[in-house]
């Protein structure tokens, strides 16, 4: 039995509001194994964004435990979380979130700056990753020179550059047309085929269908967790 990449135990998060304490996430349990491709679904307000923020170590839980690669991160301080985000996680956002002033190569290399690599290594790795997502020829271009789909590929290259244990993608196709979305999803499929673990948030069933397992949230709880029917599920354990 392989050790799960992610194991959350009774994970909960409450926010202070004017009306009192609001529980956005009410004691969630979930395990994600290496190589899995999971889609997280649910309407807005279901707690899936809160859950993703916790998975991404951008926020700390109010209760419960979160084991990332075997380590309990629920009570880590900000700096330790930043290092985890840098070394263990890769983020892909809906809005691409590339830095507009930097070349694609520098954008992809940015996580390596915070990892403390020297310039030569950063360049080499960034070029390698850009080539992997099929944009090697645009290394010196600025993000504004390429299309949205291409920008998202660059964002994926940036997420991959630190060889993370896990990629967290938050509505990665939300700003793209269906054709481009399909291309991006094919890239995710490929990466998953190479053994990269992916957690993807979406509300579109077509997109979720690419994942081997679909987890549905409602009112801060998981209401269903099942293998995608149209595709052969990754064997649980």
């Amino acid at each position: 039995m392989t050790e799960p990449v992610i194991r959350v135990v009774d994970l909960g998060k409450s926010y202070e509001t004017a009306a009192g304490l609001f529980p956005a996430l009410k004691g969630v349990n979930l395990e994600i194994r290496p190589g899995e491709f999971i889609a997280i679904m649910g309407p807005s307000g279901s707690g899936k964004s809160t859950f993703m923020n916790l998975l991404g170590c951008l926020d700390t839980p109010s209760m419960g435990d979160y084991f990332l690669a075997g380590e309990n991160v629920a009570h880590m301080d900000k700096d330790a979380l930043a290092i985890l985000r840098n070394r263990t996680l890769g983020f892909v956002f809906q809005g691409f979130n590339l830095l507009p002033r930097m070349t694609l190569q520098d954008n992809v290399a940015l996580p390596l700056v915070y990892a403390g690599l020297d310039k030569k290594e950063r360049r080499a790795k960034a070029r390698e990753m850009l080539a992997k997502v099929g944009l090697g020829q645009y290394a010196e271009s600025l993000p504004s020179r390429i299309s949205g789909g291409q920008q998202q590929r660059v964002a994926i290259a940036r997420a991959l550059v630190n060889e993370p244990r896990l990629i967290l993608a938050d509505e990665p196709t939300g700003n793209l047309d269906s054709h481009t979305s399909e291309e991006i999803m094919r890239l995710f499929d490929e990466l998953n085929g190479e053994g990269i673990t992916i957690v993807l948030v979406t509300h579109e069933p077509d997109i979720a269908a690419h994942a081997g397992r679909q987890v549905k949230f409602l009112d801060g709880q998981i209401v269903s967790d099942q293998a995608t029917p149209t595709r052969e599920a990754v064997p649980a354990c």
Partner: protein
Amino acid sequence: MLKAMLGEAWLAMGANRLRTALTMLGMVIGVGAVVIMMAIGQGAQYAVQQTISTMGSNLYIVLSGSFTTAGVRSGSAGGPTLTVADAEAIAELDGVTNVAPTHQGTRQLVYGSQNWSSTVVGTTPSYLEARSWSIVNGAGFGDSDVRSSTRVAIIGKTVAENLFGGDDPVGKTMRIQQNPFIVIGVLGSKGQNLDGRDQDDTVIIPLTTAQRKVFGTPFLGSVRMIMVQAESAEAMPRVETDMTALLRQRHRLREGLPDDFFMRNLSAAAESQAETTRTMSILLGAIASISLLVGGIGIMNIMLVSVTERTREIGIRMAIGAREQDILMQFLLEAVMISLAGCLLGLLLGIGSALLVNAITSMVIVISGSSVLVAFGVAAAVGIFFGYYPAQKAARLDPIEALRYQ
């Protein structure tokens, strides 16, 4: 990492060039003002110090004072109450290195077809020593010249130029009040004294010759003035007390009678002038520093705007692993770079305008390495001080909020 951050700070500065340039301008003007003000202030100090050093150090001037005859009081130096014998007695005191009795007045000098009015000083060879005045051409006179009242003269540079033109004055004969004098030496230049008088416009002749031939002193052996040099600044108060006691005793002044001489401490007057210029230069620097402060506030203002504008960027950086200190450093570095670049340009501006002031006004300007170093240090400190708050604000952003920021 630092190198990468420097590169990023450079990019960020280049992203909004006009804004960066205007922010920098505040520093440029601030540093420029500090540099030029310090240059002028230090220049004034230097000029005063130069003058003081030409005057001679630790000097007293004893003037024959007022005396009262039948209720009528003469003014200062109203009568010849000092004598050469007084001077000789003062020379015996502890802590006195040079004593020069002098008698001076303005006389017309004639050489060939030229004539020139100048201050004629009759004195002893100690005078030149007390004032550390050297002879650049020819030689001085000795005590024997004073004893035998020879008609020799040492002239200042101004006299040499005005009376002799291009000729070498040494060996030439000029006339002071019909009396022929052989010029035996030319003095080195001292420039203006503290009152702005040309010290080089002078003729120095033996005391006895001056009294007999030039001024026609009624009482031989009396002098108007004695120049006294103490061996050190520390010895001056003691010399002053001793001298007063000695002169009162020699002049047989009873208890309660006023002194019949005046004593002036030349060094004290010079020191007070030096103190004035020092105060002035500090004041100038302080006023200029205010513009540096305003420049720093400009940097803080722009950095705050920049942090707000780049909130989303900060969120992205945090998401991919920037720690608080990384964000802090990035913005701090940017502020310091703007500040230092402004400082560099300000130095050029300050030095340039100092040279310009020097060229058009002949004001003495001193740009010292220390003032350049101070400007750099202050600029770096301003960058860090005024950059810290915005940088800290950036570093403390919540990554989730920052990522959501539109």
